[in-house]
């Protein structure tokens, strides 16, 4: 094992203290060391967006961060989006209802990105949604179901927030 460090971080609300190799990317740390394999690696050079996680609430590519950089930070992954085991997040529900996924490989990045985006912009236009996910590649859906899901989720979230 190469040079390593001890880090402490919160992932999906749970605190982890782990020894990690300094060259490990955050994505590999989450997947291999914490077993949170819901975050996917599609390109490892920061283009496809499948590895997107939320870092202190902000979307970020976990293939473009070292795990050591997450020391002291709060991470949310796809495993941590749903409010409980029996209940999905409105965005997840909207993805299912609008066929926003086929193979499901790009889905973790789509969900994390859109959670941040809908926080920034609760009532987006279709074009704004398309630009928000411009850094997330999907090879299955042609994006149509994803865009519909995002718009649907925005409405559900607005309604839930009493808007």
């Amino acid at each position: 094992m190469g040079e390593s460090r001890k880090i402490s971080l919160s992932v999906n609300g749970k605190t982890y203290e782990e020894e990690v190799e300094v060259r490990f990317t955050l994505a590999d740390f989450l997947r291999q060391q914490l077993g949170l394999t819901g975050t996917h690696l599609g390109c490892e050079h920061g283009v496809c967006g499948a590895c997107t996680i939320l870092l202190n609430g902000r979307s970020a590519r976990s293939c473009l961060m070292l795990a050591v950089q997450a020391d002291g930070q709060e991470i949310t992954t796809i495993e941590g989006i749903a409010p409980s085991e029996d209940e999905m997040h409105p965005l997840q529900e909207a993805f299912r209802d609008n066929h926003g996924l086929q193979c499901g490989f790009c889905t973790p990045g789509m969900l994390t990105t859109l959670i941040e985006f809908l926080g920034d912009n609760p009532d987006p236009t279709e074009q704004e949604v398309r630009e928000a996910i411009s850094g997330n590649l999907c090879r299955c859906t042609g994006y149509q179901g994803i865009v519909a899901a995002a718009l649907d989720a925005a409405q559900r979230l607005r309604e839930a927030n009493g808007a």
Partner: protein
Amino acid sequence: MKPPPFSYHDPSSVGEVISLLGELENPKLLAGGQSLMPMLNMRYVMPDHVIDLNKVEGLSYIEENGGTISIGGMTRQRELEYSDVIRAKCPLMYDALLQVGHRQTRNRGTIGGSLSHLDPAAELPTVCAAHDATILVQGPNGEREIPFPDFPVAYMTPATEMDELLTGVKIQAWSDGHGYAFVEFARRHGDFAITSAAAMLEVGGDGGITRASLTVGGVSAAPIRMNEIEQALIGQAGDEEKFRELCESCREIDALGDVYASSEYRQHLATVMSRRALVKAYDRATGKA
């Protein structure tokens, strides 16, 4: 595609960074990681040491004082995008930021990282060139300022020394109500521009241009100011045909060429992007857009 082995350092002060840069063999500075990390993953760069700047204090700020905008090197692109100061005082940068990468990369990417990486197609160096920005650099002998025209020394090579750290940028705001436009052609939204143009214009009461800045990015090794066009614009009204004529000289730019875009195509796009930027900037200056 996994990073090669390296030692990791996470200093908390600029002084420590400078010392590490002086002590360590083959180090690389890690800012937002949106350029360095892909290169590490692909093993295009193989540093022995990575010096992480993310815990360095005092490098993330956006301040405005008497028309001078000061930005810390570790200021994230998202912070610039959402900054009222930038929107009010440096709207060209705001215009450009909307075309920089994607929200995930803007959340991490920093202005200092973008300037240090100095990709000829990147938007922020082009904005700095347009604004005659001053680059703030700190080294073992203290701080120095590099005027932007002296900053790029070669393709993707800034004028910072090996033991220096880019700590910030200073930009002089233009007068309120100036026209500005950042126009680019990229294959897809968020891609690096094949060619971009940044224009700023001040227009007098008679509709004549009193001050002009025109910069072309992505065409040559570094952003290039079109000085002759700028001079010729003074006194001109916003006539698109005149702009078209003036921008023809962009075909003379010493242009890069590759399999994606030939030098001729880039030169051609430079004429188009320049003209479109000038038209949009003029319309904004005169309240038409």
